[in-house]
């Protein structure tokens, strides 16, 4: 069965989703969903272990050889992403049962879990496949289910946010499809490896250049790269809080993966960075993303908005690492993909706990919350420190690597700007902490000095993620080793 590992981790949630619809009892559906997701996590651990031990794995779906059929191709990069997605999905699902109790009516909870599993299938499928069109198909699955999940939010503005995301996401996906179609026209193949061998022959044609441009813009829409980020803040803010925790840690990371996969593995380094002035474009957009989004975050009143804008800023860090286009820079990007998933899922899950207990989403409602929910607020503080990049947290590790990569490349001014941008992070995280710790509780609420801590079913996953933030901030062997291996193999330093 071990040889089937690459496909099994997609098949398990794929088969579990329709089963959930058949069962249709929220409690059992939750158990099935968490079993499927947990199994996927175990499979992705095994997969990573296999890849590190024996190098990239391939799997021919339907038993058809690569360019004729569809191929799954797992190397360090995929295995790393698969691990992140399945781990976050499982931890978040663990909390889901309690968290959606008050946000989603019980009649719709089954559909929620089905959509959740489908979006997991979509993301895992995107990451595992070695076929460009197959990637698009699973992109559609993940997008469609995410529109549904976001629209399930209790606030009616969720519908508008989901609609905006639907329009932007569909344009992005269509652009990617146009790009894939043009590539097929010029090469006659859809397999990524095959494409990478056949594209250089026709690299000078306008069609290939157009394909490249469409794919880059399409992926950047999905990525919410500044200035194409307009759909993200509201989608994150009005989605059910559990969905925000899930997507903030996975969805944009998958888009980063697609960007890296297409530019490095399909078009190839030399084409990607010469066809368009990609380095310069991404550096400027990344930097302006950090500043604009961080400043916007400072002025938000809705706490979910604050951290949504912070996500856009952090995409900026990842894109800057990418734009350096050295092994060290890409390592920093991948490291930040891993670390940012940990910090944001911890933060948004802790917010889900706050919303579950108090319904508070606005900053002023956080006054004195540290007395009511000391454990949850402590988790927010630690995750916030990680977001800032305090030593002994994961945030420090990836920003450190990014700075070193910039300095190695000789981009001193950029390094200074990033440090300045980081100060803005301190400001918006501090605003939340100040409210919770240094203001007395709101008066209009009935005076109740007893603690109203979140239930353990929420606290436990939150603290697992916070602990991961600290553990991987100290013991960086796993994350750095795999990120480095992935970056080296993408640059062709190691096969």
């Amino acid at each position, binding site marked *: 069965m071990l040889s*089937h590992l690459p496909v099994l981790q997609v*098949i398990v949630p794929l088969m579990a989703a329709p089963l959930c619809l058949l069962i*249709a009892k929220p409690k059992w559906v939750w158990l099935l969903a968490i079993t499927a997701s947990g199994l996927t996590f175990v499979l992705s651990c095994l997969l990573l272990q296999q890849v590190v031990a024996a190098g990239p794995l391939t799997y021919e779906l339907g038993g058809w050889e690569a360019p004729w059929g569809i191929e799954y191709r797992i190397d360090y990069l995929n295995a790393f992403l698969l691990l992140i997605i399945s781990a976050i999905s499982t931890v978040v699902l663990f909390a889901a049962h309690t968290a959606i109790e008050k946000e989603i009516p019980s009649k719709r909870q089954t559909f929620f879990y089905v959509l959740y599993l489908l979006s997991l299938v979509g993301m895992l499928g995107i990451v595992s496949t070695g076929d460009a069109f*197959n990637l698009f198909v699973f992109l559609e699955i993940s997008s469609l289910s995410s529109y549904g999940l976001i629209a399930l939010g209790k606030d009616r503005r969720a519908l508008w946010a989901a609609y905006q995301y639907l329009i932007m996401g569909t344009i992005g996906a269509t652009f990617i499809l146009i790009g894939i179609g043009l590539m097929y026209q010029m090469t006659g193949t859809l397999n990524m490896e095959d494409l990478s061998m056949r594209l250089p022959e026709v690299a000078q044609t306008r*069609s290939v250049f157009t394909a490249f441009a469409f794919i880059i813009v399409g992926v950047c829409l999905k990525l919410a790269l500044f200035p194409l980020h307009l759909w993200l803040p509201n989608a994150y803010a009005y989605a059910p809080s559990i969905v925000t925790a899930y997507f903030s840690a996975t969805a944009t990371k998958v888009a980063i993966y697609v960007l890296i996969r297409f530019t490095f593995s399909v078009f190839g380094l030399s084409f990607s960075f010469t066809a368009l002035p990609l380095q310069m474009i991404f550096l400027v957009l990344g930097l302006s993303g950090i500043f604009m989004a961080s400043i916007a975050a400072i002025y938000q009143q809705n706490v979910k908005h604050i951290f949504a804008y912070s996500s856009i800023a952090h995409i900026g860090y990842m894109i800057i690492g990418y734009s350096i286009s050295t092994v060290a820079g890409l390592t920093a990007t991948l490291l930040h993909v891993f670390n940012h998933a940990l910090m944001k899922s911890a933060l948004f899950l802790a917010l889900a706990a706050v919303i579950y207990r108090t319904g508070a989403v606005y900053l002023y409602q956080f006054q004195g919350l540290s007395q009511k929910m000391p454990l949850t607020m402590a988790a927010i503080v630690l995750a916030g420190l990680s977001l800032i990049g305090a030593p002994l947290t994961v945030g420090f590790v990836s920003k450190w690597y990014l700075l070193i990569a910039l300095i190695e490349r000789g981009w001193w001014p950029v390094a200074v700007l990033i440090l300045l941008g980081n100060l803005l992070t301190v400001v918006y995280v501090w605003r939340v902490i100040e409210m919770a710790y240094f203001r007395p509780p709101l008066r209009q609420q009935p005076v109740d000095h007893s603690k109203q801590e979140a239930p353990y079913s929420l606290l436990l996953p939150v603290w697992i993620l916070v602990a991961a933030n600290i553990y991987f901030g100290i013991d960086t062997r796993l994350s750095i080793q795999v990120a480095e291996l992935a970056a080296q193999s993408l640059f062709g330093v190691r096969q």
Partner: protein
Amino acid sequence: MELFVNVILLSFLLAIALAIVRMKDLFAVIMLAGIYGLLSASFFVVVDAVDVAITEAAVGAGVFTLLMLVATVMAGRYEQGARHKPLLALAVVFITGSLLIYGSLDMPAFGYGPAPDHQHVDSHYINESMSEVGVPNIVTAVLASYRGFDTLGELLVIFTAGVAVMALLSTLYDSHSNLGTGPENKWLYEQQMPIRLVVKILIPFIMLFAFYIQFHGDYGPGGGFQAGLILASAIILYAMLFGIRTAKQVISPRFYQCLSAFGILLYGGVGVVALLNGEHFLDYSVLFTDPLAGQHVGIVLVELGIGCTVFSTMILIFLNFYERKNNQLDGCQ
């Protein structure tokens, strides 16, 4: 001659597209969109893409029109005036369009033999599919076998759409007012007598055609997607003219939910059977002693799975739209 037909079809398409953009009456827009679908289908026939043509006819001219009609009943018949001039959108469209034209300038001519897209994978499918898959319709061979996993993914897309619609629109309370039988509006019922008569005669033929398309997909154009759509439009037509209650009495919504899940499970199950036999996921050769017969069995089974899911998902979407409308009307009273 072919060029002449193409020019006429394409200019019609352009004219209709412009009319759709200009019009404010949504009913007319939907009808035009239906015609647009039919014309595109004709265009696909001219360029020899008959499988795509059937799909476009079933989607663009069929189910799409019906679903949009139900949607306008909820949303109102006329489009509201624009509040702002969409200049930015125009600029984006202009840039995108110019880039596309720029990219198509050195495109190989349509149907040009030595073009790369006819040389590599394409020629393998044309030359080898009969001996490797054994199905006369090459499109079905590619769709269901060579790239069967893509098709499973596409099916999952449709399933996702159905679940998303149910998640957002399904009623939260059991509406007892809907339990009565018979038509909702007596007067309308009388008025529509001739239409109902014609539809009643047509429905058996529509269904028969759907089943023909379903089980003939490996020999001629068609397959589960198209068959599911056609069958669904028969049921939707029935529900629209004879009342949703009557239609629900025939088959309950819960059944459609189970059927849509069953379709995916059937498709995935065929793949899992291959896994359990030690072969790769979706390798149909293990289903029978003779690999070619196994391929055939596999294709028939997965097409059946596609048919089930597409059929039931379309009806679920329709039912949820329609019930939403009823609730809205209840709310107004």
